[in-house]
């Protein structure tokens, strides 16, 4: 599974302070730390700074890639900020995100195509967020269709069908898992989700997140946006991949054990 590090996000106060003061050293440290802990791709977000987001995004992409040789997820709803990031990004970026709302994808998909990026597509439309697995699946099909119309192949589309906190919506986790199974029946389409939302409002969140990651892996998740420095999540991913025959000869699991990383 593709592990995307979530920590360079301006909603985290320490990161935002570093963004405002252009403290590249701190941000690079967070990048290095996540990669050292197994992140293969890093999400970068500076969206809390509305006024100069494009300029900041360009800076952020450059300083992160200067330090770690990984692709980035350019995270912004603002097409100008996305383009500013894509312009300077090296390798194949992932754009985060579009929804099935026409005014949103029509501005962003041409950029995805132009910079040969991949794209995260959320199952949200003008009517809001779907409640059932079937509604999520229908929106996923629509998203695959509109991305294809913009010349983006299904293999470059990551569908995020939105995890809700189990504390407030107890029936939503099972709907989400069922949606994953349905979406995986679409040829080549990738699936992605953020993890930490599921445990909002409950104690011992890292246990819930780790258990949930095993469940989503079992339902076919391809990529997860997580805190890779959280050892219990990382361990659960290794264990689940070994159990699901996604880790040949359990090699990665054994290696992680030897390095005391489990």
């Amino acid at each position: 599974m593709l592990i995307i590090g979530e920590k360079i996000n301006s909603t985290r106060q320490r990161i935002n302070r570093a963004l405002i003061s252009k403290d590249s050293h701190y941000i690079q440290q967070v990048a290095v730390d996540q990669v050292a802990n197994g992140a293969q791709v890093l999400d970068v977000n500076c969206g809390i700074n509305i006024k100069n987001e494009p300029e900041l995004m360009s800076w952020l992409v450059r300083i992160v890639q200067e330090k770690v040789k990984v692709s980035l997820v350019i995270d912004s709803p603002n097409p100008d900020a996305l383009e500013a990031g894509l312009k300077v990004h090296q390798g194949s970026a992932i754009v985060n995100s579009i929804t099935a709302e026409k005014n949103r994808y029509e501005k962003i998909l041409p950029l995805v195509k132009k910079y040969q990026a991949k794209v995260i597509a959320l199952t949200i439309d003008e009517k809001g967020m779907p409640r059932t697995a079937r509604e999520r699946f229908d929106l996923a099909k629509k998203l695959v269709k509109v991305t294809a119309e913009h010349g983006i192949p299904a293999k470059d589309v990551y569908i995020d069908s939105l995890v809700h906190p189990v504390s407030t919506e107890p029936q939503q986790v099972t709907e989400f898992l069922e949606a994953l199974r349905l979406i995986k029946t679409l040829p080549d389409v990738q699936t992605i989700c953020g993890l930490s939302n599921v445990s909002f409002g409950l104690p011992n969140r890292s246990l819930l997140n780790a258990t949930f990651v095993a469940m989503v892996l079992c339902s076919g998740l391809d990529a997860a946006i997580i805190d890779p420095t959280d050892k219990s999540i990382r361990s659960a991913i290794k264990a689940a991949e070994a159990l699901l025959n996604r880790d040949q000869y359990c090699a990665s699991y054994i290696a992680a054990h030897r390095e005391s990383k489990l």
Partner: protein
Amino acid sequence: MIDPKQIAENLINGQAPKVKELVEQALKDGLTPGQILKEGLIEGMNVVGTRFKANEFYIPEVLVAARAMHAGMDILKPLLAKSGDKPTVKFMIGTVKGDLHDIGKNLVGMMMEGAGFEVIDVGIDVSPEKFVEAVKEKKPHVVGMSALLTTTMPSIKTSIEALKSAGVRDKTKILIGGAPITENFAQEVGADGYAPDAASAVDKARELLQQR
């Protein structure tokens, strides 16, 4: 004779049927609806709020307590309306335009209800125009605006500006909240206050009301 404390106790433990039964019994015993509300339901929700704020209570426990509160409120509401003992504070709440999150908004609404306020929930994805219209029509004492995304935070600003242009900004207090919101941001956009969580929102609302 039912002691309102028993009602509070059962509310805190989320025992909706028991709360309903005790409220009915308390009325039979001659307690006034106002007293049951204040010493039973509001007192219980106060404890829930305090524990939630201290991380001793978790969201599902708050939800089940709120359900118990509603079980009691359903009985008291018509009686309170009849006796003229209506809530004195109107609190309006909505999630701003472009934002579909409702968990935080609902929690704040429940806490405000638990504090004895009349809660007017205008929903999610509320446009500035809709806020203006609702404030004009309902005349709330306090308006709560919620934004959970960095992308929708600016909608708080445009909503407050819309209230200004419509000439109703100073008729109400504005309290804002949501994950990316900070005290600084609240000052920047001209809100009256910011609360980091649902229980603090009640304290903040009370504080703002005293400034009136």
